[in-house]
């Protein structure tokens, strides 16, 4: 009975997601870059990057209770891996101005020669997956010493490791791989993503990041709902009790940490393809803080919350509150007050209000489907009664 209901729910969810993706693909074709609505596309692109980053952080902070602040570091690893493996041969020398490029492979290029425009897509996908894997390896190495630490010590140690990663990637001696402190550019970016079928070209510049984020978030949802996910929650609620129940703390913490970093790496790769550049100095701890604030805004421990939080965050800072920076907001013209930076001030005040007075964020620890059933409380009560009688 329960199984059947679940199947039905999954089916509906799948349809909703498919419709959403189709809508994005249509928007991609309809909206031109010069349109006023092109902001919507920017929001969708950046929103999906941050949504993925926020959800992966939530997996660690909200579901496993490991307060880690190393996200920017793993995103950096992902962004660099993606960038390095998609720089085409002809622009390699201009990118690596001061060094001899050590890695001379570009996945999309290699596959394009065999498979046409489909090869480009496959190459990009491969590079993204590799980005996640490299980030995961870094996370495994870092996790070995760090995961033994408790709460704030863990936070500060992961923050420290993110800073170390940043320093290592900027080191001149690694220049042939990372291009030192110079930025990486000219790699495959979203504006060039097109699929040619016969005569028609389908633009996919928004569709690709959204698709990557959707698939990854779906995977995280599956993980959270699995046995592993339940173990994570048990660790979050009470470490000692979880250990007493036979959960291997070290193993589960490591799984959560590595998985979260894998998806952070993917988010970093997506960010690189959206922005078109990758530079280590952009991945400061401030980026981790921003992602953390998105998670808090949406509600710690809610995946839907993180998605909503990050899309709202991006939409507000990129689109709705733009006027605060450029002189005119809601029809009020006050260039003296509404000048550069005011948007971020207003924004941080809103966040402080949420942190102080609405500590649960937008969703608390609920998911979207929970809100759609008004009698959820009763049903869960019944279910728990049944379990007891069993």
């Amino acid at each position: 009975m329960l199984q059947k209901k679940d199947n039905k729910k999954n089916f509906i969810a799948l349809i909703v997601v498919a419709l959403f993706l189709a809508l994005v693909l249509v928007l991609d074709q309809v909206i031109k870059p010069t349109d006023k609505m092109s902001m919507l596309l920017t929001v969708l692109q950046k929103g999906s990057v941050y949504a993925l980053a926020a959800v992966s952080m939530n997996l660690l902070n909200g579901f496993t209770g490991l307060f880690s602040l190393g996200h920017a570091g793993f995103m950096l690893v992902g962004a660099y891996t993606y960038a390095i493996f998609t720089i085409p041969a002809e622009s390699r020398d201009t990118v690596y101005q001061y060094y001899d490029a050590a890695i001379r492979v570009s996945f999309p290029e290699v596959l394009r020669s065999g498979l046409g425009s489909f090869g480009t897509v496959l190459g990009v996908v491969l590079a993204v997956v590799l980005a996640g894997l490299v980030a995961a390896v870094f996370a495994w190495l870092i996790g070995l010493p760090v995961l033994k630490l408790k709460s704030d010590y863990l936070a500060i140690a992961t923050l420290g490791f993110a800073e170390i990663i940043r320093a290592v990637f900027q080191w001149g001696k690694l220049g042939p791989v990372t291009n030192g402190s110079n930025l990486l550019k000219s790699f495959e970016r979203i504006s060039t993503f097109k699929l040619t079928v016969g005569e028609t070209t389908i633009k996919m510049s928004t569709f690709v990041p959204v698709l990557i984020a959707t698939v990854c978030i779906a995977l995280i949802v599956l993980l959270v709902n699995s046995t592993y996910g339940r173990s994570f929650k048990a660790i979050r609620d009470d470490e000692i009790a979880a250990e007493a129940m036979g959960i291997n703390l070290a193993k589960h913490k490591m799984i959560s940490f590595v998985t979260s970093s894998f998806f952070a790496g993917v988010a970093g790769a997506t960010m690189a393809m959206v922005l078109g550049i990758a530079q280590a100095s952009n991945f400061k701890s401030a980026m981790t803080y921003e992602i953390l604030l998105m998670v808090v805004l949406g509600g710690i421990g809610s995946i839907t919350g993180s998605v909503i939080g990050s899309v709202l965050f991006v939409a507000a800072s990129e689109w709705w509150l733009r006027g605060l920076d450029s002189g005119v907001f809601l029809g009020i013209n006050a260039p003296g007050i509404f000048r550069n930076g005011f948007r971020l001030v207003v924004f941080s005040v809103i966040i402080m209000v949420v942190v102080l007075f609405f500590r649960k964020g937008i969703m608390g620890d609920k998911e979207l489907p929970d809100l759609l059933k008004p009698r959820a409380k009763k049903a869960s009560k019944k279910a728990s009664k049944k379990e007891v009688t069993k």
Partner: protein
Amino acid sequence: MDLLQSTLPYLISGISVGGQYALIAIGYTMVYGILRLINFAHGDVFMVAGLVMVYLSAAMPLYIAIPLMILLTVALGFTIERVAYKPLRNAPRMSVMISAIGVSYLIQNLALYITGGLNKNYPAIPWISDKVTIFGMETTRVTVITPFLTVILVAALVLLINHTKIGMAMRAVSRDFETAQLMGIKINSVISATFIIGTFLAAIGSMLYFTNYPGVVPTSGGMPGLKAFVAAVFGGIGSIPGAVIGAFIIGICESIIKGLDTILVVNGVITEQVGFSTFSDAFTFALLIIVLVFKPTGLFGEKTTDKV
């Protein structure tokens, strides 16, 4: 002799930087000792102290500007505690930490808005930014007086904590928050006093720190703040002498790593520059991780046991 000659400048500037870190680290360690909170906003308060000094010194003579700057910084520290931390006193520790990160974000953005993101030149304070010559090398006077000033201030603080009523209250609160409350200690005023002392020292530290740097930008509080926190952890968080010794060690190590290329080249160990200076920040964090893994309580920290 060559080794000493080439290392000395870095050693002296390291001691000076260490003293500045020590003044910031005390704010971290005291707040952590009492509230068990990493006050992420402390580094930004330090930056604000620098900015306030820039603006005040443009408007009034220094002998008014300096005390007023210290007063305003202390007021800021006090306000932050009252507005952002006090309402969360009974909330989980993670919430308070997030609130601290939020405050740090807010202060940085506010500073960005006010300054327009431009580098603000720090005023030259007469006497302390004069050039002096010691051991045959030229440096500013602030480099020389910083360690002494730090030691004097720390000694005064230790006296305050060990021999006054408020100091006793602080020790009691850091030992056991709830029992202290039951014994009639007004914890809110004790916590406020802690923040006032911490920000006071950070304000003085900012004066010494920024004199040696070209200017203040909204993000210039972040790194010194994090390093001071590492110093506090290194020395054993909650312990004031520990924080000071940790800060000096970190300051010296960092400064020597910055100059390691030059030192090694001069002494003929290596023939070309390797670029160690990139790692001067990373080293601090590597040290932090080593300490946390092998001796989580730091050099002078007390052992804590978890109760089920």
